[in-house]
């Protein structure tokens, strides 16, 4: 039993199904903890403080929301590169309608979200109708959408949005943590529920793994791919609304910085909890892993550009990791089978 090649194999065969099956699943979580401990000792005066914790959790809730939308089409194997542009369009729409035209902020948010839904519908239509790689379609549509965001905002930063919106997002921090963090966690739970508990989530999984199998099992592949792209766009628009709420202002460039981190989080998240699958709780861990790293480094005195290094590096490393982790657990399972 224990004369198998590597240690984890012996471990897994004794612990059977429960317990520490596939220790790789928790690697990211472990690294995160190590990172936190490191910063606690490296910058003891500023890192382990309520203020820093509050700012870390609150400031990147928007990123988490965006990434959670993104993993829906990713689960079906489709990239959506337009989310950051939809985010920007949504933010400037809310700000512009509210500040320039004086609309009630609730209506502004509704219009912004409907516009996001429309972009998703367009993406889905083009991708499935003409059978084009969503990578290209969403890149193109995203650029057009970004182009629209400029005239909507007159290419300026619009500030002075109705504080009613920020009240919803920022007021009464619960346990010193801004409420937008809780919104993001609720969305995370909702996506997790949809992924594992609904037919839609399971069918998306099959489409992503093998669309031919899905089709031959009667799954309406075309329709579900469209729905998934509508979800990501709509959620991106929601993220835009939340963003305006937290900052009180918006410009057409608001979303630009979020695209790469969102992908980094999605891919990094897929290396943890359920390895090889895009999953919401993994995405949450990944987002806050990235945030921890960046704010810790900045507190240690690193320059602004450390963000780019960290996000970019994390994306590439995440993709490499997912390959390695997968190969390892495959090997171990085979060894288990041969026992």
């Amino acid at each position, binding site marked *: 039993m224990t004369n198998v090649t590597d240690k984890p194999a012996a471990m897994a065969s004794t612990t059977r199904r429960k317990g520490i099956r596939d220790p790789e699943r928790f690697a990211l979580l472990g690294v995160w903890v190590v990172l936190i401990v490191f910063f606690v000792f490296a910058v003891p005066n500023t890192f382990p403080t309520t203020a820093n914790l509050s700012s870390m959790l609150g400031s990147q809730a928007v990123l988490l929301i965006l990434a959670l939308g993104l993993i829906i089409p990713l689960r079906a194997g489709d990239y959506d590169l337009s989310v950051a542009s939809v985010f920007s369009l949504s933010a400037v729409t809310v700000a512009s309608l509210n500040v320039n035209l004086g609309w009630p902020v609730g209506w502004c948010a509704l219009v912004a979200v409907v516009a996001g839904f429309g972009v998703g519908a367009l993406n889905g239509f083009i991708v499935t109708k003409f059978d084009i790689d969503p990578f290209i379609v969403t890149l193109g549509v995203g650029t057009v959408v970004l182009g629209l965001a400029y005239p909507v905002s007159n290419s300026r930063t619009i500030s002075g949005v109705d504080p009613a919106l920020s009240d919803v997002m920022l007021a009464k921090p619960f346990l010193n943590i801004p409420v937008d963090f809780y919104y993001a966690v609720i969305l995370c739970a909702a996506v997790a529920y949809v992924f594992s508990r609904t037919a839609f989530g*399971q069918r998306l999984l099959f489409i992503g793994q093998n669309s031919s199998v899905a089709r031959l099992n009667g799954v309406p592949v075309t329709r579900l791919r469209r729905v998934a792209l509508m979800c990501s766009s709509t959620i991106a628009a929601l993220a835009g609304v939340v963003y305006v709420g937290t900052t009180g202002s918006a410009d057409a460039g608001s979303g630009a910085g979020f695209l790469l981190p969102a992908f980094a989080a999605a891919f990094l998240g897929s290396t943890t909890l359920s390895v090889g699958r895009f999953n919401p709780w993994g995405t949450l861990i990944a987002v806050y892993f990235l945030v921890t790293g960046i704010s810790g480094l900045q507190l240690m005195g690193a320059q602004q550009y450390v963000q780019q290094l960290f996000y970019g590096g994390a994306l590439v490393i995440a993709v490499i990791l997912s390959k390695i982790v997968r190969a390892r657990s495959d090997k171990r399972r085979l060894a288990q089978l041969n026992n």
Partner: protein
Amino acid sequence: MSSTDRSATGGRANRASTGAELLSITGLKKAFAGVPALRGVDLNIRAGEIHGLLGANGCGKSTLIKILAGFYTGDDGEISINGVEHKLPLGPRGLSDSGVAFVHQDLGLVPSLTVLEHMALDSNGTASELHRISWQQERGRVETLLTRFDLNLDVDAKVDTLSPVEKAMVAIVRAVARQEQTSGQGGSLLVLDEPTVFLPREEIDVLFALLRKFKAQGDSVLLVSHDLDEVLEITDRVTVFRDGSFVGTRNTAETSRQDVVEMILGSRDVHTARQKSKVRTDIEPRLAASGVDGERVRSLSIELRAGEVVGVTGLAGSGFEELPELLFGARTWRAGTLTVNGKEVTLPTPHEMMSNQVVLVPSDRKADGGAQELTVLENLSLPFFSQFARGWRIKWKSLRKQSEQITERFNVKPKNIDLELGKLSGGNQQKALLGKWLQTKPTVMLLNEPTQGVDVGARREIFKLLREAVSNDMAILCATSDYEQLVELADRVLILADGEVREELFGSEITKESMAEAIYSQGAK
């Protein structure tokens, strides 16, 4: 049962008399994960002959070709060319650098590129990336080459505008040119792996004329084919493999068609006793299609009745392999009408057909059967998500229970439904997937090569379970090139050729010989 006719080694006796042996293979062995595919086969090809290699599916002929081409490594045996021994393993390029040119069934051409571009790719194969291609020179070279083989082709034509036979010839000439370039000499061997399956009958002669030209040059050709009549027409000698073993080599001129059929199938096999099935003619047919046009299938009509297993078979490319997917709506219908259980289906799609209780078990398990990286549980649950749900919520507990029952009933091993499907052996995967579909209580089951890569034991179990389902008024369509399977399973067999039903065999008429006879004679028409 494998009493071969090694005694009658006419070919072997003659071998000594004629001189130059170009390729000689003795005792070549190959096993995949302990399962032997070649049990020590011999093959001898003389200079200047066209040699046929025949055998049923899985007899090992494609394994042999793949070893020679360097895709697989041989386990044991001797290979020599022109008396020079080549040690195993042959390396990734196989015998390609020793004067052997290969043309595989898929031809290896890119549809959107021109003839000239294909040829230029080869002649600049080893040049540095910065090497400047002289198109004028290439054009001249390619035109000379084509004229040499009397091929009248536009070198600027894109491959997808060529006729099937032109494509085949481009592939052949290309292979020969490549071989001449690397070895720089004549006296070579051209290996053709099933080159004729997609060719219309009238164009095959054009191809054969080309092969005779090679022969006249003193080159040899090894022709691997299913089509008996073609092989008998063009070859000088034939070699037959069966179940990974060498059966014999014969001079074609001295061998009758019947002899070769017997060599391919082995000694006449005993007809398996099969329970009589009760075909329900009192109720509407489970599935009736008429005037169906698909990619290969042409105005085909078919009726499946409750309680019967209908087999369809034919040569590769005859359209039989397309039929299950076509009837399931997974391929495009060009024309035709379809009724299922008396209800007309105007636009068949997989979704639509499944709601009419028609299911498909595709032939390619990896690509179409199940998602290899998802678990057995997930794969077995896919058609049931709507059924096993309370509101939006999937009832995983019930699904888990059902999946466990399926794996129990169909004896799927290992009994761990949380394992990835891809980790199961082919036979166990197939049992699990069949179990899933039978669980949906279908009225029609469309099977495509249902026991491909399935071991004998699992095969028996699968047949038993299918028979059981049929006796409960299900109808089965089974497309396969495995005659044995049809003998055991089918109540009637349709033989297809050129996309049409050419012959129908009933009950006791269904034997391996009658099917082989019908298929090969239909292919020849």
